[in-house]
């Protein structure tokens, strides 16, 4: 039926992502010629003799500013989309997402605490780890409150997520007031989400956590699918339900923590990418998660390009941009979901 479409989805998404990556590296306040970018990249990868039409400034922009930023956008988007898809299976709800479940707010709080304590600049992995701790606390709080009965209704889930988000947000505001002035701008910037000024160290930190977490989640695709059948059926099929669920939530928190540490809060990506791709590739995780990774990466690479090019005067906040697209998308999806009863 949709087998052909499902098989085509991943190569098509990969192709689109490659084009978007190229476009996003070339475009910006200073435009670089496509040919020059391609030549320079080929030379860097050892694919060509090293001839490039890009001048020294162009090369500096490409390799120290654009490329790390664009790759980071892809990692953040891909990671968040995979986490969204996993949360949707674990909570058995097609509209679950990091933002709606308070995971984003928890990760932000963790990261703000790290910045406040001055840890973020002192210890290399402190920021992603603090964001991870915050994300984990939030997801566990939602899991134990909304999921205590084993069956999570959409309403219970969203309301618990709102409460957890509000609490984390409140604590974040308190921290903000207490934070030394020179750090406030960092914190604020990061709450709105963005990739401004991110370099290779950020890419490394994000890549370690996002790629390892996503790989493990893809490997665990079959247990994720069994879990999506519901607690009772999963248990009757021999799955250790509690341990699996906690392990998956831990990995989800790790990945979303790393993504939040890198880019701040980037809402709705985890909802949109899997939601749009599930009808095409189906809900089985081994196929959905890789497709969602590519789709989420594509989305955030384009959104980040938008933040740099939509306004001639300011760089727009990345999280605000994804929210402007994602919130209406969520409302439409919610309506469709409620309509089916």
């Amino acid at each position, binding site marked *: 039926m949709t087998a052909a479409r499902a098989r085509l989805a991943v190569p098509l998404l990969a192709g689109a992502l490659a084009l978007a990556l190229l476009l996003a590296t070339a475009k910006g306040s200073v435009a670089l010629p496509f040919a020059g970018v391609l030549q320079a990249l080929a030379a860097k990868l050892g694919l060509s003799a090293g001839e490039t039409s890009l001048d020294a400034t162009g090369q500096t922009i490409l390799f120290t500013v654009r490329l790390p930023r664009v790759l980071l956008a892809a990692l953040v988007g891909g990671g968040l989309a995979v986490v969204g898809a996993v949360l949707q299976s674990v909570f058995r709800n097609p509209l679950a997402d990091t933002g709606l479940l308070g995971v984003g707010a928890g990760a932000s709080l963790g990261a703000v605490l790290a910045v406040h304590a001055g840890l973020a600049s002192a210890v290399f992995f402190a920021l992603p780890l603090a964001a991870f701790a915050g994300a984990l606390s939030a997801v566990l709080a939602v899991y134990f409150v909304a999921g205590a009965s084993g069956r999570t209704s959409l309403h219970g889930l969203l309301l618990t997520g709102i409460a957890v988000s509000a609490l984390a947000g409140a604590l974040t505001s308190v921290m903000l007031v207490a934070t030394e002035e020179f750090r406030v701008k960092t914190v604020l910037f990061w709450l709105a989400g963005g990739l401004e000024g991110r370099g290779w160290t950020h890419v490394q930190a994000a890549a370690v956590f996002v790629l390892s977490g996503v790989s493990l989640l893809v490997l665990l695709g079959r247990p994720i*699918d*069994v879990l*999506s059948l519901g607690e009772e059926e999963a*248990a009757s*099929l021999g799955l250790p339900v509690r341990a699996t669920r906690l392990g998956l939530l831990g990995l989800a928190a790790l990945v979303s923590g790393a993504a939040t540490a890198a880019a701040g809060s980037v809402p709705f990506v985890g909802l949109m990418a899997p939601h749009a791709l599930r009808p095409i590739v*189906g*809900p*089985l995780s081994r196929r959905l998660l890789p497709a969602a990774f590519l789709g989420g990466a594509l989305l955030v690479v384009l959104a980040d390009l938008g933040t740099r090019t939509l306004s001639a005067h300011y760089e727009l906040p990345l999280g605000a941009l994804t929210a402007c697209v994602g919130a209406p998308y969520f409302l439409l999806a919610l309506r469709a979901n409620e309509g089916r009863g």
Partner: protein
Amino acid sequence: MSAREVLLSARGLAVERGSRRVLSDVSLELRKAEALVVVGPNAAGKSTLVRALAGLLDPAAGEVRLLDRALPDWPRDARARALALVSSEEEGPDALSVAERVGLGRYPHRGPFQAMADADDTAIARAIEQTGIAALAGRRLGTLSAGERQLATLARGLAQEPRVLLLDEPAAHLDIGHQLQLFRTLDEVRGRGVGVLAVVHDLARAAQWAERMLLVAGGRIAAEGEPGAVLESAAAQDAFGVSIRGVAIADGGERAWRFEERPRG
């Protein structure tokens, strides 16, 4: 009949939900190829019994033995290869296709990482064929009727290729044609030696299909034996609060059943 191997047995089984005892002192045996039906009024403890037999609820007292080994001693995956539970309450995610749902029944055989083999494809195809849902194999669960979803859940249970099949109201949403198909499928499965225990609401249908009937009332087994005899017992009439009468139909020993309200005292 009594010579057949016992596949599943319970001795003095009791289950508590919170501090309330919902099942007390239940003992039963399910034999190879047997058709055992469990009936009882609402909230009698039938579903609890099935879940305890499947190992999903820990008993407060007594024990369940599967193939002569205590249930808690079974590794999870081996238990799921020996015993399958099909409940009418289970509903997979809407986006899952029927074939994918049935395929997840192979999880106990392949675990998280092993690739699917020919034996899996054969089991999946046979389960889909037997439940008569071949035409629906590519459809997503969200587009199916409640009855069709139920058949897909049954097919998942068959794909597990268990030796014991437990069903909780498998016919709840099925129209008459699908009901007949369901019980014919269960008989085919029994033909391969699988012991089948089913909770069935429709008493006449239950009596027609089963070799043996258990009446559960107030969390205990109130009567047990040949279906007709159980239905006509005083225990059954008290449990349901109705009068039950079998009327012999001309050919053979088959009976039609008449149910009438009894004035409540």
